[in-house]
């Protein structure tokens, strides 16, 4: 390595800290889980090599795993799009000069910054079938339809959980759209915000397409969020009842720690990793490297 090579490649020095962290805490762990997924291992005692046995079991005889895949699909579609839709409407209203619009923005965004651990505990009180907010409302007002086994019916529980997520993150979508709308040329926005017969058309055909980057960013962040979901489910349902709200991260945790199957948990982690990488590659190939941000 000559001095000249080093000068020509001084970018490497700028990259070095990121590269080191990447290798130690990302690349090595990835190789690690691939390796660990081939073993029957409790994390403490000697590991036994089992080849692809963990994968075979996962895909042929593991209802909880199948449920967590199903739930991830539900979660992706039922959080991202409602959040975007409602977020856009709110952003649109809250950039049109209604009174107190800044205060409203703070209110809607607030859940996004609160720890899901806290929210899980609060929402348990709202959903509690006995003595909970909705159950008491139903009992006192006679609106019996509010009295539902929100978290106890395996058919409903996942949707109740998703609802909390939508409540939490809609404000974030709103804020991204507020930023996007404010970044539009002034005349586009004011033209769109004149009421009348053409207003919806103007929004539909002019404003929405111009916010393409915001839509894509939100989809990207939504997918990341879905694949990361742990704390909310852990606090709200612990993945139950009977694994009906299991997500891949909660299942990895359940297997790795309470059930002490680190090898099997690693195999599930590999599947999650492949999904995540697939999503990343999809994003990059469709949008290029510019996907989140403008210019």
């Amino acid at each position, binding site marked *: 390595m000559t001095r000249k090579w080093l000068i020509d490649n001084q970018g490497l020095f*700028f990259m070095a800290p*990121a590269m080191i962290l990447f290798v130690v*805490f990302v690349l090595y762990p990835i190789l690690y889980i691939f390796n660990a997924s081939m073993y029957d291992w409790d994390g403490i005692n000697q590991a036994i090599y089992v080849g692809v046995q963990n994968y075979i079991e996962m895909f042929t005889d593991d209802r909880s795993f199948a449920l967590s895949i199903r739930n991830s699909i539900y979660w992706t579609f039922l959080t991202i799009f409602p959040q975007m839709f409602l977020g856009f409407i709110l952003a649109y209203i809250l950039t049109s000069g209604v009174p107190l619009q800044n205060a409203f923005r*703070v209110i809607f965004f607030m859940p996004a*910054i609160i720890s899901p651990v*806290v929210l899980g505990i*609060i929402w348990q009180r*709202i959903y509690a079938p006995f003595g909970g907010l909705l159950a008491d409302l139903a009992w006192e007002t006679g609106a019996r339809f509010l009295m539902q086994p929100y978290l106890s019916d395996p058919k409903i529980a996942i949707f109740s959980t998703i609802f909390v997520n939508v409540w939490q993150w809609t404000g974030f979508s709103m804020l991204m759209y507020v930023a996007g709308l404010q970044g539009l040329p002034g005349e586009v926005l004011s033209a769109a915000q004149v009421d009348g017969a053409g207003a919806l058309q103007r929004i539909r055909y002019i404003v929405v397409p111009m916010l393409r980057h915001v839509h894509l960013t939100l989809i990207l962040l939504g997918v990341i969020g879905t694949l990361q979901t742990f704390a909310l489910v852990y606090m709200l349902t612990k993945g139950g009842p009977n694994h009906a709200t299991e997500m891949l991260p909660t299942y990895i945790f359940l297997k790795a720690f309470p059930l002490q199957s680190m090898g099997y948990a690693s195999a599930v*982690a590999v599947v*999650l990793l492949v999904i995540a990488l697939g999503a990343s590659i999809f994003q990059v190939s469709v949008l290029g490297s510019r996907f989140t941000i403008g210019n």
Partner: protein
Amino acid sequence: MKRNRGKALAFIFVSVLALVWMVPIIMMLVVSFMPPDQRAPRFGGLLISGVSLQNYVTVFEDAEIVTHFVNSVAVTVPSVVLVVVISSLAAFALARLKFFARDIWFYLLIMTLMLPIPTLVVPIFQINKALGLNDSYLGLILPYTALGVPFAIVILRSFFAGFLREIEEAAILDGCTPFGIYWRIMMPVSWPAVAVVIIWQFMTSWNEFILALVTMNSVEVKPLTLVPLVYSGQFMMRPGPMFAILTLITLPVILVYYLMQRFMVSGLTAGAVRG
């Protein structure tokens, strides 16, 4: 006229929705002020029979809230700072410099953009164990930083890429080194993008749960996110103190957000989601 009516309707719509939106947060506050001997208040806690500060007294007497707060700060602040420094350096290099295998590195980094922390919880636990970092702040700071860097790089890189070549060339003619360009020219005007990175990383590190759960074993080093679990045994049968804890761990984040919120919108507008 018509326009005003539309505005009034919109105002009513957001007001009602905002009220509903706030219910869980109001509930958290109300229950935290419940008299300590009350149980099962009506409407899950929206209606209490009296107001008392006793729960907060109990929490400050019986729980090390301040210690946990310091732990959260000691993990979050370094990880935010490290992410800003490391990712801005890397983003600058990726945007403005040529070097060996540049594109390969870039694609490697953005491939891991979506890497969920739970995937790596087992190996990171083992790495921390090997490095002796379990139960220490660094055991969280380093992984949070490593996993936050790719997203920050993507944001900052495109911001840096937007600079005019001419300014950079003029600086080089004046004898400025690449580091000088990064430090004196680019960084000072990049605050909108940096603000977005700061807020995002702050939120992720402050609220991260699963890695903290397996890394921090001793009560005295646990960050705030784990506090409801730490004390749920102790305050299990006392919803008042429990909700006082929830309120106390939520207030700092709301305060930080309130102080940063104008940067957030302007930062997003100026840099991040420019169309």
